[in-house]
């Protein structure tokens, strides 16, 4: 059950093209399904409808009802049967329709999915991918804009990743599917339609590594998912004031790859960690904690954070205030610079 190496197959995936994140994810599943007949896709409304975001569009038509399952409406069922299917040798890719609906499946994820490999001493692999469109900014009703990724980062045995751009969407999802470990795959839903060039012949980074998206010297921003664009925008704006912000996309949220962040902080002396999720006991806390350990003598200011507030996600007319934006990021950089 060793993971096959990610390779480009089919004509669609060898020429350079402009794609969105949604398209990159769709292509990734298609490529994985073409490569390996054990890969299957399951979730609510993902077949005939192609998913509420159309990310699985066309897959059921092309791969059939047995490989692309419109499941009953129950998330514990989705995760729990996916585990059984994985034990049988399948590689299920589950879609959770929205972030806020992953909680009915939480027990199966925490009690079975994350622990199966460990408790069986490696005899049972459960290569299940759980795709979660996450985060706010789309003007939605309750439970449709949450950022629960920190909860999974706290759970040992899970890989937790988030893509921030179409190219990563395309590669990281294939790598997640190829991984023999369970992967929680967080997709920045409000960036689904952002575009980029994909050259499928350029080899991808590994799934577990973070990436410097923009070099800089004034301060470092570490972030992931939807906030990568926000931080890059902030860095652009700061440039006008002569500040060079280095932006690191964490990509892997558990395990974290903090070497690039530490390297950066050793040069800049300042770090702001940015995420939409509430701050308390979160991934941003973890990054801050480890960087203040790693870079104790380099830090010229404490590690600051910009997060969603420690409140439930507000009604959408208030989300602009709730979500970190360019200004709040720059405000934190400012504060960092005052130390």
């Amino acid at each position: 059950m060793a993971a096959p190496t990610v390779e480009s197959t089919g004509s669609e995936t060898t020429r350079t093209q402009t794609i969105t994140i949604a398209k990159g994810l769709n292509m990734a599943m298609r490529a994985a399904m073409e490569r390996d007949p054990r890969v299957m896709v399951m979730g609510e409304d993902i077949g005939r409808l192609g998913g509420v975001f159309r990310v699985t569009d066309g897959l059921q038509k092309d791969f059939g009802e047995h490989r692309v399952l419109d499941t009953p409406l129950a998330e514990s069922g989705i995760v729990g049967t996916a585990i059984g299917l994985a034990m049988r040798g399948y590689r299920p890719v589950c879609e959770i329709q929205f972030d806020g609906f992953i909680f009915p499946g939480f027990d199966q994820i925490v009690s079975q999915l994350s622990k199966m490999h460990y408790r069986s001493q490696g005899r049972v692999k459960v290569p299940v991918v759980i795709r979660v469109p996450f985060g706010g900014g789309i003007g939605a009703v309750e439970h449709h804009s949450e950022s629960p990724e920190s909860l999974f980062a706290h759970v040992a045995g899970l890989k937790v990743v988030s893509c921030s751009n179409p190219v990563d969407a395309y590669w990281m999802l294939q790598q997640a599917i190829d991984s023999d470990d369970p992967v929680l795959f967080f997709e920045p839903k409000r960036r689904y339609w952002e575009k980029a060039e994909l050259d499928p012949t350029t080899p991808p980074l590994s799934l577990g590594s973070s990436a410097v998206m923009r070099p800089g010297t004034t301060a470092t921003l570490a972030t992931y998912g939807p906030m990568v664009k926000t931080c890059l925008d902030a860095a652009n704006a700061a440039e006008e004031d002569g500040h060079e912000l280095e932006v690191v996309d964490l990509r892997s949220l558990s395990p974290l790859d903090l070497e690039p962040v530490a390297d950066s902080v050793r040069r800049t002396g300042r770090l702001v960690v940015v995420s939409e999720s509430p701050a308390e006991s979160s991934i941003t806390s973890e990054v801050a904690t480890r960087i203040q350990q790693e870079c104790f003598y380099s830090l010229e200011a404490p590690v600051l954070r910009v997060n969603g507030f420690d409140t439930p996600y507000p009604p959408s007319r208030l989300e602009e205030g709730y979500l970190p934006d360019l200004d709040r990021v720059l405000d934190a950089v400012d504060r960092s610079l005052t130390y």
Partner: protein
Amino acid sequence: MSPEHWTRPSRADAHGHADTAPAATSATPTREQVIAGLRATSEGGADLVQLLTPEGQRVTHPDFDIDVSAEQLRGMYRDMVLIRRADREGNALQRQGQLGIWVPLLGQEAAQIGAGRALRPQDMAFPSYREHGVAWCRGVDPTELLGIFRGTDHGSWDPHETGLGLYTIVIGNQCLNATGYAMGQKFDGKVGNSDGDASENEATMVFFGDGATSQGDVHEGMVWASVYDAPVVFFCQNNQWAISEPTERQSRVPLYERARGYGFPGIRVDGNDVLASMAVSQWALDEARHGNGPLLIEAFTYRMDAHTTSDDATRYRMDDELQAWKLKDPVERLRVHLLREELADQDFLDEVEREADELATRFRQFCFDMPEPPPERIFSAVYAEESPVVAAQRDDYLQYLSGFADAGHDTEGSVR
């Protein structure tokens, strides 16, 4: 060995044996058989309680005869027309960018008004997110729904005052909350009283969809309710679709049969027949109030619009189906009945139309006039006792915002 009588599906006759399974005795239904079974009663039949035919003809039912005055009937017609109008305006307001989303009720008016009018003031109702008709009956003005869909609040009515819980979006959750509430009604001695106190008896009704029946919480709600004899009526609106998934993705057998597994009554009612919905709901609520709960009602109806304004139903269902259901339109059905039986005249219908126009205007105007919630609302009522962490975040944020005002610059980014 093991003949047909170990075969428990009650629709076994409809299923027959599967030819392809040689040693098989339990006759797993084919997909076609399942669908036939699930839809079997859509044209009436022994299992479906119906009091008004799609043509508006009053029929009798041996168990559910009900005496309804002309005035009550006209009242229910008015309810349905008005809430349908508000619903259509909701859709329109979304198209005009005034609302982020709207969840249409269209087609489910009879199921909801029948159930809603069977509830008494002291009863409690727990809705899902499509229960505009139920909300109407609980005295929640349609304008009070707007905040949810405009994004200014998560529900603006008081559940305690109205007897209507907040809309609940996480599928199935409310079934457990409702069961717990009903347990409380029982612990409070509000169930099973006779004589003078009987009028103080209470019950709870919880609304959910066909898709919801698959969720563990709905099961647990039914287990709890049956174990504690809770006075709760589970009201499942089977509108045939859970977004793009038809009912056969959730069950092999009609959903009212789920009740059999828990040992309480399950009954299927024509959900497009407001009279039948009311009759069955009244009966079930009375049973619950008398201490014979829980009960399950499956209202067999149809979602005539898309799942929400974000949905495109043409991607997964045939127009034929919609056309067929249009012939069973719940509002039209009662209108024809009222006219045919001379229970209402054209003046009445016109008056209701006028009221609907008025409601529409008021509804739209209310929406246009809705104030933006102030940013401090983000931080309010997180806890009953203020949290110092949240308070500090609020204070910092408001100070940060006031910085923009002071500096006189707008929200363009710059390192200040």
